[in-house]
């Protein structure tokens, strides 16, 4: 932050302070008190110096924002702001979303030539992909007579997934697979049959890794060997919007809860919303893809 984006105005106590100085000055003049003049001017000097000090408390501070963790609607989004201070210690730096109340301010001190972290949480808006809201950073240090602030719009986005339904409804009845096989409900086998070996792909579970051969593979610079499990179509779990009823948000909530549950149970799942399809798979990447799809669905 520099000269061009820090704003500074006298605070309310600062205005009172001006009034006090004016009264002290008038009293000094009227009673011709030399020491009174001295006191008045000492305070005026300190007040002016505090303006500079308040400004300097923000000037030259650099900030960055950790990419915020995605949240589910209704949860608190957490922003983690890191302060990099190359100068002297700074005190009483307040962070809040622009336009929120004074009480919502998170305060932090930045040590000399050091870093500090401040966490700011706010209620996540409805599902979707959002710009991180504009942040206001304020300080009144040292005397509180001036209020310096700066506005910062971090270049970061926040994913808000739909609220997950709770408790989780049973998975939908799966339509007939290509082989015509029916499954009343998905049987969730933990140990799938051994079918072969292939290199590790993102999304493979740790369980699938053949740890006995892992050391050798790493030694020779190859990817980790993974058991190829045969995932028959009948065991694929399709989470389909068609299987839900009710308002759009409720349906998305249910789908979201299914995704989480399927992921938890390590059962490969696919997502079908409207005409869009995501093929069955497992893993954080897949889960994210699904949830993001749900978040953006209109």
């Amino acid at each position: 932050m520099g000269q061009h984006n820090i704003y500074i105005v006298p605070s309310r106590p600062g205005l009172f302070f001006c009034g006090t100085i004016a009264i002290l000055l008038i009293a000094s003049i009227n009673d011709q008190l030399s020491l009174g003049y001295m006191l008045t001017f000492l305070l005026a000097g300190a007040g002016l110096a505090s303006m500079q000090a308040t400004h300097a408390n923000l000037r030259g501070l650099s900030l960055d924002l950790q990419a915020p963790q995605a949240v589910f609607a209704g949860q608190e989004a957490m922003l983690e702001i890191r302060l990099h201070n190359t100068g002297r210690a700074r005190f009483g730096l307040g962070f809040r979303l622009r336009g929120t109340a004074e009480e919502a301010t998170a305060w932090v001190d930045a040590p000399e030539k050091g870093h500090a972290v401040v966490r700011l949480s706010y209620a996540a808006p409805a599902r979707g992909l959002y710009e991180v809201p504009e942040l206001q950073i304020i300080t009144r240090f040292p005397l509180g007579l001036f209020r310096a602030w700066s506005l910062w719009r971090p270049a970061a986005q926040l994913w808000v997934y739909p609220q997950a339904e709770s408790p989780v409804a049973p998975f939908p009845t799966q339509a007939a697979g290509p082989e015509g096989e029916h499954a009343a409900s998905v049987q969730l086998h933990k140990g799938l049959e051994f079918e072969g070996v292939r290199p590790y792909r993102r999304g493979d579970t740790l369980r699938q890794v053949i740890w006995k051969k892992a050391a050798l593979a790493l030694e020779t610079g190859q990817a980790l060997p993974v058991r190829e499990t045969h995932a028959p179509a009948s065991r694929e779990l399709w989470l389909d919007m068609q299987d839900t009823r009710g308002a759009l948000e409720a349906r998305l909530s249910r789908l979201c809860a299914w995704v989480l549950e399927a992921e938890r149970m390590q059962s490969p799942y696919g997502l079908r919303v409207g005409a869009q399809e995501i093929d069955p798979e497992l893993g954080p990447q897949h889960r994210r893809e699904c949830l993001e799809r749900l978040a953006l669905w209109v």
Partner: protein
Amino acid sequence: MKPIPRETRDVFFLLATIAAVVAPHTPLLPLWAQAICGLMLVWRGWLAWQGHKLPGRWLLVIVLAATTALVLLNWRSLLNREAGISFLCLLMALKTLELKARRDAFVVFFLGFFLVLLRFLYSQSLPTALWTLLVVWALLTALVLAQMPVGQPSLALAAKRAARVTVSGLPVMILLYLLFPRIAPLWGIPAETLGKTGLSNQMTFGAMSEIANDDSIAMRLRFDGAVPPPDHRYLRGPVLETFDGQRWTAREGPRRGDTLQLSGQPWRYQMTLEPLRIRAVPLLETAGGDAAQVLGPYIVRRGPELQWIASSPVTERLRFAAEAWPAQTAGAERSPASLQADLQLPAGKNPRVRAWAEALRAQPRFAALSDGERPAALAAAVMDQVRGNDFIYTLSPGRYGETTPHLIDEFWFDRRLGFCEHFAAAFVVIMRSMGVPARIVTGFQGFDAEPQEGWWVVRNSNAHAWAEYWAPGIGWQRADPTAAIAPERVQGGQALRPAPGALERFSPAVWPAVRGLWERMDNRWQQLILNYSRQDQFDLLKRMGVAQPDWIALGRAGALVIGVIALGSAGLIVWQRRPHDAWSRQRAAVLSMLRGLGLPSAAHESPLRWAEQVRQHFGAPGHELAALLMSLEQSRYAPEAPPWGWRESVAWRHRLRVAGRMLEANRS
């Protein structure tokens, strides 16, 4: 021991600060106010220590109403100075009870500064200044603490920050102090006298049980030629004629004045008069001249009783020249009828003294004398009475009038302890009882034993009261009963010293030396800092080379300083923005030169590349420049090349400039 929680510690700090602010005011407060203040502070401290809740709002409102009522009952006003101070002190103590430590620091802060300023009405001495500094520091520290919401910052850290802010404000303070125009009071007039020894327009008999010896300087005199002998060192101040049995006051309203004839060889002198904050200008007796004089912002006139009065209380140091005649005849031709005011006595008061005076007057030895001779003989008889009895001159005579309304009786017959004003008052009452017009003159008497650098110093402790009586055909004569009882007071020019304190007795040699040093420091403080006046401001301007110092010049000087500061800070900002490492700056300089020569050099290229461009472009004449660029490349990129020192880089830059100029010349 468990560490104290931050809130508690902050509250304690604030309480201590408040106590320090209020402490010097306590002698002014009535006992009940002192008790309430103390109680509140202790109560608040206890609540903080125990972690109890603060009292409810209603209780506070009731206490506030009660204290306001008490103040009003005591003074019947809140605007009276002492009432105001007491009320502020009480308010400050009360405020602590709804103090949430941090946010309320502001209220305490503002109240605190008013109380500090009010203190200056009573003292502006060096100790007061030191107290002010400490208290202001503590108040600012409390403010800084309030702005540190995180964790438990140490007091020392907050104090350091407060000190840093204050110190960075010092230049502003000094400039303002030097240049802010010292204007006359906006309305009203400054309060006269501040309860020191010294002068005022009234004198209350026996009200002061003890007078403090104020050794601050009242004025300095430098004589051109002879110096008057000790018994002529009287400086005439307010003349008090009206007596109500307890208080002497100056007469008001139009009245006949005394005519004056002077004789003898006058003493000529210059006077530097410190601001005494009274209207009287004490001049050495007897000053001549009838015309009003303009001294600084004041017009000074001779009053009917031959005292010199300024148009408003003198709050600036004045320098002027004056003359004093050793002999005078004042009011000789006045008729006794016009002197009734100088015979007036309060009815029914002091019957014993009046009876005694009438008996003295009735003594046959006075009957034979003429009207013109008799007053002098009576005065001499009274003086003999003072000398012949066990009267004691003391600065701590105790209070008079506590058991009887007849104060002069009490002094003349019963206690016989007093200082100049007691003796002068008794003398005047006795003379009036005997039908001789008489009045009290206050002023200064005596100088320091030795002049300082040619200046004779008169201190506030030289303040004095004496008497004058009138004889037909002769006029007013000075009579100083103090000279009868304590000749050294008048001859030596020095007031009696108070009884020696414990320290003085313990180490008689060291203590006076320490005291002397302190007094010199305090005096220096008074002279240099406190008495800085409009005159000094103009002198300063003169020394800065302004031929005609006036308000406009002062304003210009202020504007100039502000302008310089503004430009300076703008410059500083630009300076802070420029690249910070030497290499970036050097590269920018070299690049601008190369581009000036028409080369397509760019910042991301190395000096090696620039050298190649120079060779290509200029061929052989460019060899020198290319070599210089190569050496830059060497110094920057060659392994184990020592970095250039300051001298080397300056030399290099010089050679670079020369080479550049030569190429420039070649090109054109």
